[in-house]
């Protein structure tokens, strides 16, 4: 144990170097910066926005429209008395994001129940989504006004009828059924909320796998590059202890690095999603729907998910160990991470665009054969009660891990640790 601890301490010290601390600090600072900037932009977009209005009509209806915009937290710059061209020019040079032109005859057309036109001119000074928010709000104000005007008209003409029933004679009441549970709501919303809930899983997994694997591969490559591996292999410590120490150190540091990364990432998203808190009631409704459908995790669910991610990390570390043996130096170590990256990316992207359970059989076998696919499927399988599938996934990952560790231990206890090489663009190396 003393020897193992000695090696583990050295591996950890080697990994916690200036580069790691600087890159982690840099990540925190950059993400925090992006979060702050985004927060400011979102606040600006949510806050009072300036638009110009040229009311050429001056009717009660046109004034109602402008008032409606004022109540939707817009600051209105009145351009009355100008021609359309002058108003466009004034708005363009000012800070207005949009110019609303209400032509003469707008009120009269409304009264005569003829289609009434208004014109909007959006000044695109940036192409960000937040920047285009002004026009979206104006459109929703116009939609609301359309609704109110047509309701008034219908009430006037058919006082005994409900305008809403006249406009939408068919109403749909949507229900979602998941297994034996049913709740009122739209399937689209449920799918959206599930994807939002499980969005962090692939990111966490991806980050830890890449961080830790890169560390293991680099640690092995460093031993080779610095010519320290041969000495290490002749000291009295079991080869399995060498493998375990390297994997454990990389796993620990990888976990901490991913934690820091996730914390910063969450902070950044928190900055951008400032409105999320305000939409609390809406989210609460969503949460109630998910609760009714049983689409929430209990403690057991989280334990299973954690176990699945943990096993995936172990598999990645064991794979990285073998790939590290193939790397001759730090440069080739950078290429060695590629197969692992692809193995994580394939199930990640497929899980975004398709239902893994519904793809063709050969593709399904291919995906299920990749050990990293299983953590992506755990939350869905938990929701749908596919416990057999979850158990099979966990068992499969454990099996792959054991096979890989035995293989790695075999490599370490034979000549292969010194003779196995993979060179890029060169023929097999001769052995001295």
């Amino acid at each position, binding site marked *: 144990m003393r020897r193992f601890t000695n090696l583990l301490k050295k591996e950890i010290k*080697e990994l916690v170097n200036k580069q790691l601390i600087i890159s982690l600090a840099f990540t925190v600072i950059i993400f925090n910066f992006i979060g702050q900037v985004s927060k400011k932009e979102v606040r600006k977009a949510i806050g009072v926005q300036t638009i110009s209005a040229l009311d050429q009509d001056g009717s009660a209806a046109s004034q109602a429209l402008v008032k409606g915009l004022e109540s939707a937290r817009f600051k209105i710059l009145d351009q009355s008395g100008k021609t359309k061209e002058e108003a466009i020019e004034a708005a363009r040079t000012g800070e207005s994001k949009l110019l609303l032109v209400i032509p003469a005859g707008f009120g009269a057309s409304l009264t005569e129940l003829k289609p009434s036109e208004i014109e909007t001119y959006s000044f695109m000074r940036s192409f960000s989504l937040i920047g285009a928010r002004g026009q979206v709000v104006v459109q929703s104000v116009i939609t609301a006004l359309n609704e109110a005007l047509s309701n008034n008209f219908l009430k006037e003409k058919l006082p005994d009828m409900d305008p809403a029933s006249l406009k939408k004679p068919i109403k749909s009441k949507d229900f979602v059924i998941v297994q034996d549970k049913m709740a009122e709501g739209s399937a689209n919303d449920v799918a959206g909320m599930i994807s939002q809930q499980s969005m962090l899983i692939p990111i966490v997994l991806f980050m830890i796998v890449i961080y830790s694997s890169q560390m293991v591969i680099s640690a092995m490559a460093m031993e080779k590059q610095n010519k*320290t591996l*041969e*000495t290490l*292999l*002749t000291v*009295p410590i079991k080869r399995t202890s060498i493998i375990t120490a390297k994997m454990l150190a990389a796993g620990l540091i990888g976990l901490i690095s991913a934690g820091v990364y996730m914390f910063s990432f969450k902070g950044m998203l928190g900055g951008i999603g400032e409105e999320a808190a305000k939409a609390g009631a809406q989210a609460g409704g969503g949460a109630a729907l998910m609760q009714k459908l049983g689409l929430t995790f209990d403690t057991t669910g989280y334990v299973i998910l954690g176990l699945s991610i943990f096993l995936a990390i172990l598999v990645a570390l064991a794979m990285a160990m073998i790939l590290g043996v193939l790397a001759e130096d730090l440069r080739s170590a950078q290429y060695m991470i590629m197969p692992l990256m692809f193995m994580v990316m394939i199930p990640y992207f497929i899980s975004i665009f398709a239902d893994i359970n519904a793809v063709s059989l050969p593709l399904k076998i291919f995906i299920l054969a990749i050990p990293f696919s299983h953590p992506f499927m755990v939350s869905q399988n938990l929701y749908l009660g596919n416990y057999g599938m979850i158990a099979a996934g966990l068992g499969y990952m454990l099996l792959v891990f054991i096979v890989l560790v035995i293989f790695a231990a075999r490599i370490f206890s034979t*000549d292969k640790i*010194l003779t196995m090489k993979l060179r890029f663009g060169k023929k097999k190396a001769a052995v*001295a």
Partner: protein
Amino acid sequence: MSNVLTVRGLKKSYGAQMALAGIDFEVRAGEVFALIGPNGAGKTTTLRIVATLLTSSGGEITFLDHDLCKEPDFVREKISYLPEEAGAYKDMKGLDYLHFMANFYARTPEEEKEFVDRAVAITELGDRLKTKVGTYSKGMTRKLLLARALMTKPVLAILDEPTSGLDVLNALEVREIVRRYVKEGTSVLLSSHNMLEIEFLSDRVGLIDKGLILDTGTPTELKDKHQAKNMEEVFRSSLR
């Protein structure tokens, strides 16, 4: 004099390439046995097999009455190996490196201190041991590694080209250190293609070429046998 190491019919092949074709030699207690031969003769392969790094393809190796191939863990406790192109962890300070390596062999903190003190004395690097290994010259690194190899007073020190790449003064110092430790009971198996070094250091020599031992004996015996003035002439004569 009893044998520390006995090698009989040792063979090693890498696929179709035969590196050792069945070699015999032994290292006696308290002696320096040197394998000399040209590049690719099989010296390093032999040393790596004895150091438990490589497995043999045939033959027997007995180390202190134990089968080296079957009990590598026992062997690793008693030997130390200095590869030809060895390095130390560049980000570690010299002293930390010695502590790190001593920790694998020491059973108590007192023993660890004893090993490190001995290594510090061997290196003669003084305060430079408090700086990172990455800043050392080749000679300093080699001395550090030699100190690491000898600090535990191993039963058998396996040194592959111990003075490779060193200047005259550093090479001389390294040879003196090795001789001193042999007097204290460590046996040495080394390889070299520096014939002068062999004459100075070795008690007995094995001439190796193309995976075969051509001749074995003390430098004096070999010179007499081949009627040669020095080991270089001995080697040329044995090749014929």
